[in-house]
């Protein structure tokens, strides 16, 4: 190859590689910029008071305590429903059947669910739980709806985790006289713990960040919920209303910092725990 065209080739080669590198740095920079921007504007209002005080003046001042509690409750309720169902489904798919029309059907159901936008879950939750079943705008309505939404995530990650358990361990359990359910419960699941946990964390992250679905099923009340049948406001809903209605930009920033902070801590914490265990 003549030297000139070789040089030309190398020129383009290096140019494009550098371009891709810059793009990557830009994306990384973007993330950091977003976080720093929010923190810069919102950090001043963040204090223990912020988390523990009640909102005043429609949220223009005060804290977000009841909202924090509502958010946590929503997370607990939705995971309490979705996790057993999701893991149960995953166990059934991997341990109790062979590939066939049953598994295809179940997987198809989960795939479709995964692709449905959250607003449609909002409509569904409103139609079924709030109205037809008469639960009204409540944490339980929201929790049930959110559970339906994150079910595919938990199924997918649990299945992967269970599949990665070496076959020998199952044989080992059987050879010691264990029944199928004993092998699954005492050997396979503990071994798949990490992967399943990651899936649950991912689901939790989605639940915390979800807005459209929650507004139409749990409502927007800022009061401290006294039961699961009370209407309540989650942090992302609060944040959305503050920002959109222009109620208070300061509080919006602070809430977003709290929200993003919560999500990031949960994610990082989970990754850290998993890396430690490995």
């Amino acid at each position, binding site marked *: 190859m003549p030297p000139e065209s070789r040089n030309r080739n190398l020129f383009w080669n290096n140019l494009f590689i550098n371009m891709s590198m810059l793009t990557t740095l830009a994306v990384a920079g973007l993330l950091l910029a977003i976080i720093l921007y929010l923190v810069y504007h919102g950090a001043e209002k963040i204090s223990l008071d912020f988390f523990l005080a009640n909102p005043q003046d429609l949220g223009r001042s005060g804290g977000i305590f009841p909202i924090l509690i509502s958010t946590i409750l929503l997370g607990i309720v939705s995971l309490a429903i979705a996790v057993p169902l999701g893991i149960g489904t995953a166990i059934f798919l991997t341990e109790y059947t062979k590939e066939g029309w049953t598994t295809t059907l179940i997987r198809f159901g989960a795939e479709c669910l995964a692709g449905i936008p959250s607003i449609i879950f909002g409509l569904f939750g409103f139609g079924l739980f709030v109205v037809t079943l008469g639960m009204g705008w409540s944490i339980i309505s929201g929790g049930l709806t959110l559970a339906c939404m994150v079910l595919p995530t938990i199924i997918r990650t649990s299945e992967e985790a269970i599949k990665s358990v070496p076959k020998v361990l199952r044989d080992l359990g059987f*050879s010691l006289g264990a029944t199928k359910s004993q092998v699954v419960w005492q050997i396979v699941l503990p071994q798949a713990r990490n992967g399943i946990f990651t899936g649950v964390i991912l689901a939790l992250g989605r639940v915390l960040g979800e807005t459209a679905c929650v507004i139409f099923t749990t409502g927007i009340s800022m009061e401290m919920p006294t039961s699961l049948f009370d209407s309540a406001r989650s942090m992302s809903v609060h944040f959305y209303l503050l920002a959109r209605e222009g109620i208070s930009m300061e509080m919006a920033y602070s809430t977003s910092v709290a929200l993003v902070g919560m999500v990031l801590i949960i994610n990082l914490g989970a990754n850290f725990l998993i890396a430690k265990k490995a």
Partner: protein
Amino acid sequence: MIIDTLQPTPNTDHPLLKTEHLSFTYRFRLGGKVEPALTDISLEIFPGTVYAIIGPSRSGKSTFLRLINRLQEISNPGDMEGKIFLENKDIYSDDYDPNVLRREVGFTFDKPQALDMSIYDNIVFGPRLAGISGKEKLDELVEESLNAAFLWDEVKDRLTMNATRLSGGQKQRLSIARSLALKPKLLLLDEPCSALDPISTANIERTLLAIKSRTTCVLVTNNTKQASRVADFTAFFLMSKLIESGPTTKLFMNPSDQRTDDFISGKFG
């Protein structure tokens, strides 16, 4: 020489394990003709002995073992003909609960594998499932089993340590101890030393010789020298058939079949 000390004297006239015309073919979904994994295997194994099964790869040795503790039907079902008797009871009859069978017949895999829990919990895993409880009883069981596997001295001070941190040889001894905790009548071992260094291998062989009076051992091995070291009786499998079986000394020194002689002398393998 080791071979001289092996005096095959069966304890009773009744075999502990007997197979009658045992055949097995894997079930493949891809269609087409499938070669059988086992063809017409009939043999008897007497209590108080170590019984070795030798032969080249793909001869059906592991399949044979897995049929005895009914492990085969769980992951690789196929078509089986013939019968297997443990103490004169047909282990495939509807009355015989496979879970019970698997406590009577222990199994050691070729890859040293520990459950992700403490050494103590590994050993008591089987007994707990069988309903054995009570700290004193379990403690005693743990010491007894680890002693039998010649592992007690090495781990007695760290029973709470996670067993996955043991070495390969230790894990394999642990596997044997784990099976022994259920006090089985028969212990099946599928090439237990294939992944081990010579010293660990010697440890395992020492264990087999020590436990055989209480727990009859059936050992599948690719290593003919190992068979000559530890086995009272040996069977030679070749391409799904039982070619010859008998006292180890006879098989090695004066085999009836030419193929046996060829395999043992290393003409093929």
